[in-house]
């Protein structure tokens, strides 16, 4: 039995909204990064689901690219967080607010 496409979309939507909620409310930089991962994976689910639905492998290939991108992003993001911690003794994203007007 096949699961209907709409369930995948709902799952992806839920996952994206959780990620979005995290980005907008969390102050911890690590949580921030995780939320971004959630959103990326929501997109991945969408890509794969529709690829399966259309019987076309392009979407799945793109999901692989997105994973590679996510890995790179995490590497850079963790680097930034490390520097952040070294400078502020904290990983709260609201503390470093010097770069403004």
């Amino acid at each position, binding site marked *: 039995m096949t699961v209907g496409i709409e369930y995948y979309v709902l799952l992806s939507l839920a996952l994206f909204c959780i990620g*979005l909620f995290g*980005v*907008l*409310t969390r*102050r911890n930089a690590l949580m*921030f990064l995780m939320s971004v991962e959630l959103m990326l994976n929501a997109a991945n689910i969408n890509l794969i689901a529709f690829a399966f639905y259309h019987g076309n492998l392009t979407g799945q290939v793109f999901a692989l690219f997105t994973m590679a991108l996510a890995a790179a992003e995490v590497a850079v993001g963790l680097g930034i967080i490390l520097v952040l911690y070294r400078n502020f003794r904290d990983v709260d*994203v*609201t503390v*470093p*607010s*010097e*770069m*403004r*007007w």
Partner: protein
Amino acid sequence: METAFELAPAIVLLPLAAFVVALLFGNYMPKKGALAGIVATAGSLLLSLYVMAAVATGGQHQETYFTWAAGDAVSETGVPTIEFTFGTLLDPLSALMLVIVSLIAFLVHVFSLGYMNDEGETGLPRYYAELGLFTFSMLAFVIADNLLMAFMFFELVGLCSYLLIGFWFRTESAPSAAKKAFLVTRFGDYFFLLGVVAIGATFGTLAFQGDGSFVAAAGEAIDNGETLFGFGAETWVTITGLLVLGGVIGKSAQFPLHTWLPDAMEGPTTVSALIHAATMVAAGVYLVARMFGYYALSPTALGIIAFVGGFTALFAATMGVVKDDIKQVLAYSTISQYGYMMLGLGVGGYVAGVFHLMNHAFFKALLFLGAGAVIVLMHHEQDMWKMGGLKDKAPIVYYTFLAGALALAGIVPFSGFWSKDEILFDAIIVGLNEPIFLAAYAMGLLAVFFTGFYTFRMVFLTFHGEPRSDAARDPHPVSWNIKFPLLTLGVLALVAGIANLAPVYKLTGLEITYLEFWLDGQYGGYADLTYSAYGDTVPFGTDYIGSETITLLIAAGLGLGLAVGGAVFAMVLYNVPEPEPHTENLGSARTVLRSNYYQDEYQVWLAENLTLPLARAADRFDQTVIDGVVNGVSSVSLFGSGRMKRLQTGVVTNYAALLIVGFIVLLVVLGVLGGWFV
């Protein structure tokens, strides 16, 4: 013949080379740059004579050397393109003027050896460089084949005039006189520039000669009854002609822009002779002659030229009567004589005007150089009341000066008589047909008396009677380099009248009016630039008292009688051993004349009470309205950006929120526009 025309640019470029040489190496040269100038002007003179000979044997030449800008602006008459060029136009008029200018420039350079070098002046390389630059600009002005080139070199001679008037820049008066000359002539040149632009925009060409000239185009427009810029063609020709005339009035020191010329006498006397008597001041009159075909189309413009000329002739002559400085007398006589030329041209007497231009160049350069010699004799004293008795001490200076004076006063058979007589004759025959011109004629005629008077007052005070100062009792000797130019010009002042003995022709029928044939293109020249071509266009008729001969005799008799009368009157008053200052008997009239009719005062008053408040108001408008708008725009954007920048909180969560809100807004907008919600 072709060689002469191909060499013509060298006439102009030789003095330019002298300018460079004198400027760079003058200090290391034996005569401080004088030799470079003498060689260059002598070369120019020889080449000019060659060109004149080529024109005399049936040649004429027009060549464009350089196009420095071309555009495709459509003119008012529908010419699709316009070109700005440098080129030469060699015809009888320019060939004659080339010879006059290069001859006088050469003689003045020689005279400068005696007047500047021998008197131990400093700054001589600068002096000779500026003389060279002036000669270059003047010659280039003369050969210009279009109005814009003429304008450019017209400005350049003005600059050289400014530099040379202010040659003794350490004195207080010379820089001030230089500035005055510059500003007053610039005021006229402003109108000239407007005229050039107007003519270019109207006819799409600035050439003087040929079918493609603005003169031909203007004639055509008048014949076709076209409307140019909302005016009838003839009115528009009058307006543009009068705009150009503004430059002429400034440069040729005509009323009311004549005030700079007497002050210009602050420069060295050689400069006065070359620039402020013989050549640069002639540039204005030459320009009118050069585009005479254009003025001939408009009776109004001609009438204004005639009246400005006639009035200036009389006006300046009366002021010359009361001056004590020998150079001031000559300055006012120069203004007056240029008035005669304008009068002659204004009544359609093209040949008469050019003839007087030529004669005046010779005899006035002679008189100024003579005055320079007198100043050397007198150890740099210019007040005639401190002179006297120089006649026996310096006979060559005396006799040459006398020749110039007789020519200036217009005593037969000296050159000035023939040309002045021709101008007055042309004025009276036009006046008899159109009585309004009789007024201009009367002013010119009356000025003859004053001319005779002030000329001989000057001669008698300077050379006759008993010496009235130590300097006059023991004059400084003058050498060959002063005598040679005086003798050359003295002979020319005597004989130059032979060029056009029009009265003799009219009385006896002998065909000896060579200058008329010359300017009529009978030897060579362009058909559209001849006296007869102009004569067909000039709209004035002529009339005679009785017959032509009787009118001629009456006019000549009146002119000569008044000139002799003035001279005799001066002789009675001043040719005594101990002359008295008779002008003091004139009372308040003398005060007015000594103050030059308060011309300077009213012009300063106009500047201070009209121009200055106007400039202040314009400044205020600029400061408040124009700058206010600019400043307002900048403060509004400054304030706005001050508020906008608050968006940058530095908190990364806010940025994420903004990103998302922006994305949603974009989505909604695209959705609404794309019709998703319908």
